[in-house]
């Protein structure tokens, strides 16, 4: 399955319709490109998707609220991107290794991140939270696109170990302009490494529209590297699941890398420090609100009789429990002691850092001595 680039010179990066299996109004569609990976999805699976996507949205709402209340230094809202984040992560095996960007809260949730893991780095208590080996997820990456190379290197390691895991690189439309992402595709293609590139095209890189990064659909670039690609509706959890299953099967089966462009939309600001009213219209945001990933999945589940008040109440209770724990973790966080800033710079002793520790420690001890003397 290979994406065919358009030759229409008029076009812009939104010209081609992405593959869609669930319309914005919640109607199930068929598409021969993905049916084989979607037909066996049962209602329990879809309910699981809905549950995690709802949790992702509540976590996002809580993150923004905690920032506004001064409990977090920053938050990168992911509202609107729940389908691709949750669906792609749920399609992975537990031993696949994922390399998220800083906005992939939904990915972390699916992989089992604890409530505190979602807030302590945004609060500024720690540089990263969970143990990557526990979740098989790298620390969320802030340098745009840098993690794509890590994913490819990890995939090269999988090949050397003779394993059948897959590495997954998450990034956005802005990242596709970075050299690292292009180098990652070259390495992955040359070594036929088991990596899936998941580009969440949310249309905005802070204030720059995707058309600044790409005049043609981003998925169209991958075939030029020799990487099969697909452009999917990133707000359609069923298409995202199916596309990811296709991609993972391809990569796991020795077919080499795959590229997914998930066409979605960042409903909120880039971060809580951003003001999107300066660069985009509310009409545009409203158009995307009508394509919300959660409402369409709910509509399908209701039509199938798989969504009732009890389910809703259960999902809400789970989400409330999680976000309450997030809030508690943020508010109750105790900052590490001053000397700890010198910890873990190196794995082995370093005489320069040891000397710095001695100096800083003596300086800090001076305050203790002062307090002692004042008594």
């Amino acid at each position, binding site marked *: 399955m290979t994406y065919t680039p358009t030759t229409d010179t008029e076009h812009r990066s939104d010209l081609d319709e992405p593959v869609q299996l669930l319309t914005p109004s919640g109607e199930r569609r068929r598409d021969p490109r993905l049916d084989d990976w979607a037909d066996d999805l049962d209602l329990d699976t879809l309910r699981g998707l809905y549950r995690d996507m709802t949790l992702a949205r509540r976590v996002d709402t809580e993150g923004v609220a905690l920032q506004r209340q001064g409990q977090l230094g920053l938050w990168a809202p992911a509202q609107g991107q729940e389908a691709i984040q949750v669906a792609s992560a749920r399609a992975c095996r537990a031993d696949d*290794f994922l390399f998220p960007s800083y906005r992939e809260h939904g990915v972390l949730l699916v992989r089992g991140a604890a409530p505190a893991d979602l807030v302590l780095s945004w609060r500024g208590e*720690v*540089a*990263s939270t969970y*143990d*990557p*080996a526990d979740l098989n997820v*790298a*620390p969320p990456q802030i*340098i745009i696109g*840098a993690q*794509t*190379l*890590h*994913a*490819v*290197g*990890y*995939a*090269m*390691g*999988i*090949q*050397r*170990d003779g394993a059948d895991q897959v*590495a997954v690189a998450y990034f956005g439309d802005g990242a596709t302009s970075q*050299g*690292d992402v292009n*180098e*990652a595709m*070259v*390495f992955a293609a*040359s070594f036929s490494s088991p990596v899936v590139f998941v580009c969440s095209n949310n249309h905005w890189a802070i204030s720059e529209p995707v058309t600044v990064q790409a005049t043609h659909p981003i998925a169209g670039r991958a075939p030029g590297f020799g990487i099969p690609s697909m452009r999917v509706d990133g707000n359609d959890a069923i298409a995202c699941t199916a596309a990811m299953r296709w991609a993972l099967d391809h990569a796991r089966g020795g077919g080499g890398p795959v590229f997914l462009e998930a066409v979605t939309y960042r409903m909120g600001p880039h971060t809580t420090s951003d003001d999107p009213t300066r660069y985009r219209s509310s009409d545009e945001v409203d158009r995307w609100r009508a394509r919300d990933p959660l409402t369409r999945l709910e509509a399908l589940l209701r039509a199938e009789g798989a969504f009732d008040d009890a389910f809703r109440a259960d999902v809400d209770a789970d989400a409330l429990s999680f976000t309450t724990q997030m809030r508690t973790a943020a508010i109750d966080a105790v900052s590490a002691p001053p000397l700890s800033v010198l*910890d*873990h*710079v*190196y*794995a*082995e002793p*370093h*005489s*320069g*850092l040891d*000397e710095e520790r001695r100096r800083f420690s003596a300086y800090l001890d001076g305050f203790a001595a002062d307090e002692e003397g004042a008594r």
Partner: protein
Amino acid sequence: MTSVATGKASLTMGKALGAGLRRAMADDERVLVMGEDIGKLGGVFRITDGLLDEFGPSRVIDTPLAESGIVGTAVGLALRGFRPVVEIQFDGFVYPAFDQIVCQVAKLHYRTRGRVKMPITIRIPWAGGVGAAEHHSESPEAYFVHTAGLRVVAVSNPQDAYTMLRQAIASDDPVVFFEPKRLYHAKGDVDLDAHIADAAPMGLARVVREGTDVTLLTYGAQVGTAMDAATAAEDEGVSLEVIDLRSLSPVDYRTITASVRKTGRVVVTHEAAREAGVAAELIASVTEQCFHYLEAPPLRVTGHDIPYPPAKLEKHHLPDLDRILDAVDRVLERPNSFPEVTP
């Protein structure tokens, strides 16, 4: 089977580095080497000559020509539990990898509070004096010394090249490993059987010539120039103590300050430019720690603060024996020294 050499041998630094790599790969199957032209060709300096035949393409990886890609994929391999040894083809080609080295390789251990180790060795054929084209003679070490989380070493002889490369690969920390191109063909005795645990730790400096009048601090190929200067100075009755730093991060201040407290005078020389260079930090720290022992202001003999000049002019840039001796004269306030130029 691999052909790990044993016993004592007279080897060029290039061969010693190759032997060190071969030994490290034989000792630990998670060690792999990657870079441009390092496979069939054996690297443009032939350091990896023969490794592809011995260890195969899964451990000797000819990469695409993308330095950020090489280091970035090494990060992923390290996450997977490998110990990648990266070859950057020339010093001036490391800059595209700068972000991966500074933001990722150097910080992942800190970022994860010790959960993720980055045992990556980044080998860089380094510095000038070989009549090379532009971007092939750079001394970028200060950028890396300035970056917390990296260890930085520079070798000056075949034995250190062999031993310290193996120590760097065995280290759980990332090491930027500078190899003076000018010395690739210089020979020296190498004990191939030495255990790396028995050798001097990578972070220690070495007094390569004892003296009493002036401490001369340097590293890399400049150690040889400093030794020549010491020999020449001796003819004039001046005794130089020459210290090969070996490690630029950390710096072995214990060895350095012991020497300075004895001599009271310091000259630092390196090829890299002066401004905010390694010598500046060395002198600041020595001054802090030995101020009352100093008999004269410490001096620097460095490359000029210029882009590396064309090959035919590099001799005017590289701090040679005469410029070092001039600084020695000045730090000793000897009458034959050039007058201090006042701005």
